[in-house]
């Protein structure tokens, strides 16, 4: 292969593809030809480090070529063209909304929104995926995923202090009987490894892991999804950063080794038996904690001009990105190494963990070194930023890379991707009669892996460290009920215990809905996220969103079609809810060969993460019933349809219609409810989502250790709604509220004219009894319901 490499500029397309496969770059033929043209133009053969740099910089992971490229979407005889799908949907919504409280969007490592009563702080939020590494080595993959997203927050602006980690996972069913290919790990193995990895990294570094979810579906058997997120606090005057020519390039934190080579390009490849162990690694949380401590001290003393994290692509990506407006000369012989048996190009692209790159004015180096030494944090000066717009990387006298910044960052060719979408047939007929009683169905739903307690996972995480977790992931009388949103009071970062400003974080996710209608899936997910925030008492008019798309190969037009519809849903939802997207990420090629050698893709998966301020954390509310005698209200219209529901997965009901989201009506309803919550009229609120209304009511009752007598006859409902749809349908924009009995009249005034109906009251019995009119639906002891729900996943 070395022979071929030395003749790169004269290789045929076939040989280019061969060499790409041998070196693991994951570049396509057009990209390889573009690189070939560049080196022909400058009349020399490339060095290995140069093609490695190009592969990293142009990778899907770093460049997001699918989302930011042109798309031709054909549907029902009509064609819509996008020059840049991302900018014309998600970014467009943010630009049009133009919220003054958005301080930094889509430009840095994370989005930043204004925070705090004195507006002196920014709240940085980022989520990303680490799917491919977790499929190969779940523990190490999850650890380094958490470490990476924390570094994103450390590297936003001049550095934010992490105050919350989030985690959302998708795994194959633990009881799956599907035969796995030889190289695949079983679902339980992946599940355990990922949870342990997130636990060990988060707990050791001292950041609470307190918000997330777990979703099981056999579509994720070969390609699990691991979304990890982080929230941090940054002083508003530390958001701007700018590299200046002459600044030193300082690498701090971990040493560089041969681990993690080709992580960025690996994420654009299918996982197979040839997957190399070097693409995964184990994280070192204590090293990252040292970096964190150094940065917080050095930032406040103004000891550096800019920084970013070493993530995918290592030095190549981090230094290349920081130097994109200047230029840089990197001397790799100065790098602190784990071992000496490493080639210069490997130093350049190694993704060894826990490293950050700083741009340091030479006169401030000594002061920074004092802090680094006092925190026992390793560092090395790698070179300096220049003003010649060139990336020059040397190892002693050897030139490893000598490229223009323009070519490296703007040279990647773009291609129009075809997109189509054929929707499955939708049936809206009344659900078939179920032989099981409503109570039997409810108990099966409560025990379903996508609904049952996550206690055995959540309690492995330290969700209390830093002392600011006000509303915890597990809630209720015994601290074991399923919360809608987590509320954090970040006083450990602001140092101001007189300011009770906090923030709520939550998520919306429903790939089952995406199989039917990716557009409605997106609206459902955003609606669920906003509703969850509302249920904690957060200021939903200041909701900021993150989009994290995961999909199979974008070379499949049907996959691209789903993506287009979901992106259009993002635009409509953001505009409708007044909730801008502030950051996002995508992960493609989540598909593998099954045991029979057939492609096995994941379903289109869009995680919506949402964050909103809570004006006074002392007034935040939880989901469990609180007091006997309090009236219970159901808000929102109960629509027909069982599409996207857990019931629909368990029983063949012959109905897969999804109730569409009426955003305008939802916003009107939520605003009125928020007023009531802020006035203290609402004691508990819980959204209706997976499992439907019956599950929501059961969860509120058993989490509060209280019973209730409820009549759903007064609930706002579509005409002809069946009992199955009412109890187990998952139509959007609904929530159940416990209203303080002394404030009922006030509450009713606030929701007048809205689809809000009284359905009964909490009592101090131990039974949850539900009927509609005179027809009893089910009645059961709340402890018996809880016993069904509280099965252990691990």
């Amino acid at each position, binding site marked *: 292969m070395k022979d071929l490499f030395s003749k790169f500029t004269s290789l045929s397309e076939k040989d280019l593809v061969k060499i790409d496969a041998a070196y693991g770059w994951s570049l396509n033929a057009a990209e390889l030809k573009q690189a070939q043209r560049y080196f022909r133009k400058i009349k020399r053969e490339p060095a290995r480090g140069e093609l490695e740099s190009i592969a990293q910089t142009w990778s899907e992971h770093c460049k997001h070529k699918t989302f930011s490229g042109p798309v031709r979407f054909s549907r029902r005889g009509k064609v819509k063209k996008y020059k840049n799908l991302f900018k014309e949907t998600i970014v467009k919504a943010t630009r049009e909304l133009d919220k003054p409280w958005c301080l930094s969007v889509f430009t840095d490592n994370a989005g930043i929104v204004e925070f705090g009563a004195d507006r002196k702080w920014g709240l940085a939020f980022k989520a990303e995926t680490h799917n491919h590494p977790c499929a190969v*080595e779940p523990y190490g993959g999850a650890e380094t995923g958490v470490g990476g997203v924390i570094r994103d927050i450390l590297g936003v602006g001049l550095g934010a202090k992490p105050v919350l980690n989030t985690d959302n996972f998708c795994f194959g069913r633990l009881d799956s009987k599907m035969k796995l290919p030889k190289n695949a790990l079983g679902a339980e193995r992946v599940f355990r490894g990922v949870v342990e990895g997130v636990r060990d990294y988060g707990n050791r570094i001292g950041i609470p892991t307190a918000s997330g979810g777990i979703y099981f579906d056999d579509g994720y058997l070969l390609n699990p999804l691991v979304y990890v997120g982080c929230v941090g606090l940054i002083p508003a005057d530390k958001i701007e950063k700018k590299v200046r020519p002459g600044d030193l390039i300082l690498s701090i934190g971990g040493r560089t080794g041969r681990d993690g080579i080709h992580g960025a390009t690996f994420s654009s490849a299918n996982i197979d038996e040839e997957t190399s162990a070097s693409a995964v690694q184990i994280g070192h949380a204590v090293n990252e904690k040292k970096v964190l401590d150094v940065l917080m001290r050095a930032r406040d003393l103004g000891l550096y001009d800019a920084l970013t994290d070493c993530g995918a692509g290592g030095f190549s990506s981090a230094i290349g990105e920081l130097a994109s407006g200047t230029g840089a000369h990197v001397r790799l012989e100065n790098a602190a190494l784990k071992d000496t048996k490493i080639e210069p190009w490997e130093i350049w692209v190694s993704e060894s963990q826990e490293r950050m790159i700083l741009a340091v004015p030479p006169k401030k180096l000594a002061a920074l070194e004092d802090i680094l030494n006092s925190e026992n944090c390793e560092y090395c000066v790698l070179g300096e930023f220049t003003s010649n717009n060139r990336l020059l990387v040397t190892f002693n006298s050897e030139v490893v890379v000598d490229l223009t910044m323009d070519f490296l960052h703007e040279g990647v060719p773009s291609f129009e991707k075809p997109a189509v979408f054929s929707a499955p047939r939708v049936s809206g007929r009344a659900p078939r009669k179920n032989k099981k009683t409503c109570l039997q169905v409810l108990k099966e739903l409560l025990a379903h892996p996508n609904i049952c307690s996550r206690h055995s996972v959540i309690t492995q995480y330290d969700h209390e460290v830093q002392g600011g977790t006000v509303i915890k992931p597990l809630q209720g009388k015994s601290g074991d009920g399923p919360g809608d949103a987590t509320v954090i009071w970040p006083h450990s970062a602001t140092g101001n215990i007189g300011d009770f400003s906090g923030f709520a974080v939550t998520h919306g996710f429903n790939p089952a809905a995406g199989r039917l209608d990716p557009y409605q899936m997106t609206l459902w997910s955003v609606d669920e996220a906003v509703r969850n925030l509302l249920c904690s008492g957060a200021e939903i008019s200041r909701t900021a969103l993150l989009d994290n798309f995961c999909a199979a190969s974008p070379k499949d037009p049907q996959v691209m079609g789903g993506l287009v519809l979901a992106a259009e849903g993002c635009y409509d939802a953001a505009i409708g809810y007044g909730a801008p997207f502030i950051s996002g990420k995508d992960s493609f090629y989540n598909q593998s060969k099954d045991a029979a050698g057939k492609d096995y893709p994941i379903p289109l998966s869009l995680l919506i993460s949402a964050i909103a301020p809570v004006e006074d954390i002392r007034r935040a509310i939880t989901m469990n019933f609180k007091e006997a005698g309090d009236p219970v209200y159901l808000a929102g219209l109960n629509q027909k349809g069982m599409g996207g529901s857990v019931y629909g997965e368990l029983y063949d009901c012959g109905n897969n219609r999804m109730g569409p989201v009426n955003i305008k009506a939802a916003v009107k309803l939520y605003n009125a409810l928020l007023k009531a919550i802020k006035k203290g009229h609402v004691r508990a609120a819980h959204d209706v989502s997976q499992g439907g209304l019956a599950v929501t009511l059961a969860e509120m009752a058993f989490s509060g250790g209280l019973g209730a007598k409820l009549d759903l006859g007064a609930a706002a409902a579509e005409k002809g709604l069946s009992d199955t749809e009412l109890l187990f349908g998952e139509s959007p924009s609904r929530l159940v509220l416990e209203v303080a009995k002394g404030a009922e009249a006030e509450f009713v005034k606030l929701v007048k004219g809205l689809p809000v109906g009284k359905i009964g009251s909490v009592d101090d019995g131990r039974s949850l009894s539900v009927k509609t009119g005179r027809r009893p639906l089910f009645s059961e002891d709340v402890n018996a319901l809880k016993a069904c729900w509280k099965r252990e996943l691990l």
Partner: protein
Amino acid sequence: MIIEVWTKEKYAKNEEAGFAARMARAGLPIKAARLSRLYKVEAPWTRTEFNRLGAELLTDNITEHYSISKRPGIKGCYRVEIWLKNSATDVVGESVKEAVHDMLGRSPAGVRFGRAYYARCASGEKLRAVISKTLMNEVVNVCSVNKL
């Protein structure tokens, strides 16, 4: 030298039950089990020094035992050892290496961390197959199974 640390029997029920349950779910009933942590310290030191590391650095004396020679007393069992490959970063090993230096004023050439599982079960071959599905990952781990 390998220093082996295991939870005292009266505190070990949960970890043993968890391990047995995982094995049972994977299709292998376990009659008795013990679990331990292994620290391979590469240094030409005396047994007294290794004993000091075991007693003062690696063991919580209230809940754990350590040994540089003995094994837990389960008769007729298999011993499974799982280590990270030398090419994989061993974070625990690195941290212990630093701690050893802080304690003795000298650094060992290296420290690697591993785990041992003692299991009384019907078949060593079956145990190996189940272990490869549940506790080890060939991408990063090496494993050995021996009858005691």
